[in-house]
């Protein structure tokens, strides 16, 4: 399962992580985000041990949405060593998410 994290957990769990971290900036009211959720869970299970997958609720963490200039949900950002490595918008199929992390 891709865990939803709060603003206070973000820096340690994402920026301080070893290895790549995929973060899904989502909203509870967004259809494509709901569509993406089970795919994200599959990806989280598949990359376990090699990469992490987290979700940020843009309504619960508007500070993070603003920090990363998120103006569309879902927005997917891959972080590595605290830096943005890649980002993309919109729901994506599983193989695209795996490719983002590769």
């Amino acid at each position: 399962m891709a865990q939803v994290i709060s603003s206070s957990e973000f820096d340690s769990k994402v920026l301080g992580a070893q290895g790549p971290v995929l973060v899904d900036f989502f909203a509870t009211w967004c259809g494509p985000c709901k569509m993406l959720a089970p795919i994200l869970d599959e990806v989280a299970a598949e990359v376990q041990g090699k990469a992490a997958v987290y979700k940020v609720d843009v309504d619960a963490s508007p500070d993070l949405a603003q920090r990363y200039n998120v103006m569309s949900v879902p927005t997917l950002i891959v972080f590595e060593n605290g830096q943005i490595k890649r980002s993309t918008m919109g729901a994506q199929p599983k193989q695209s998410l795996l490719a983002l992390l590769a």
Partner: protein
Amino acid sequence: MVDNAHFDVAIIGQGPAGMTAALYAARAGLSAATFERMGPGGQMTDTERLDNYPGFAEGVDAFELAFAMSAQAARFGAVSVGEEVASLELDAPTKRITTAFGNVYTADAVILAMGAEPRPLGVERESELAGRGVSYCATCDGGFFKDKVAVVVGGGNTAAGDALYLSRICSQVHLIHRRNTLRADAVYAQPLAALPNLTMHLDCVVDALHEQDGALSAVSVRNVKTGETSEVPTSALFVAVGTRPRTGVLEGTGIELDSAGYVVAGETGQTNLAGVFAAGDVRTKALRQVSTAVGDGANAATAAFEYLSLR
């Protein structure tokens, strides 16, 4: 996922057309599989709430409806394959479906139900500013522009619905349409006219997008009758200028498309290739709605059943 799995009917897409086709095919006793790159629902899930799908007096959450359709097809044995289709071979009696995972499936009949996607406006810097102020889904992204100025381009039901939705969130909404009247259903006219924060720009098109600090800052609006140009400062542009069919995977398959790129097929969904049917938004048709997609799915599955029975 199993390689070389064979089905009586392979259905490409899990929108309302594909899921209805799966339901009817499974209930007819056929082995049926739906192939989907994302999840059930298709374009339905871009909508906040469906108010024009019959049977729900108070409207229905599009996502709930999508999952109910999927569960209903599954109840009768339809299989869901969560893999994006990479290529199709449709001209032989046995059809081959190759997915992005490299898996190959075969089927005796194929129902094409890939649907459609929002059509881009076609102005410079549009793709660059997508997600930086340019959006194709007001219900997804409207919330990011609370108390800001938003522009909607288009004149159909989607544009009208977007303008209404955004008027509740944004300080000011501009609706830009290239003709002198909206194409949207009459039901939108009164609520739109009553909005105190809506400005209509009829006979107008968006000519250019302006950027500041990596995000949209304004759009240039040109009146096609007078040639007059004005600049509308805005942080959000919602594009609702119709859809285009998702037919990329049909390239080289021999499937006949019309001049707009939709699959040529009549009410039974029969395409120019034997054993291949089209249903929903991907098909040549007058009205693209969830309600018409569902009818297409039922027709195509029934036609596929007849084709398989008479072979």
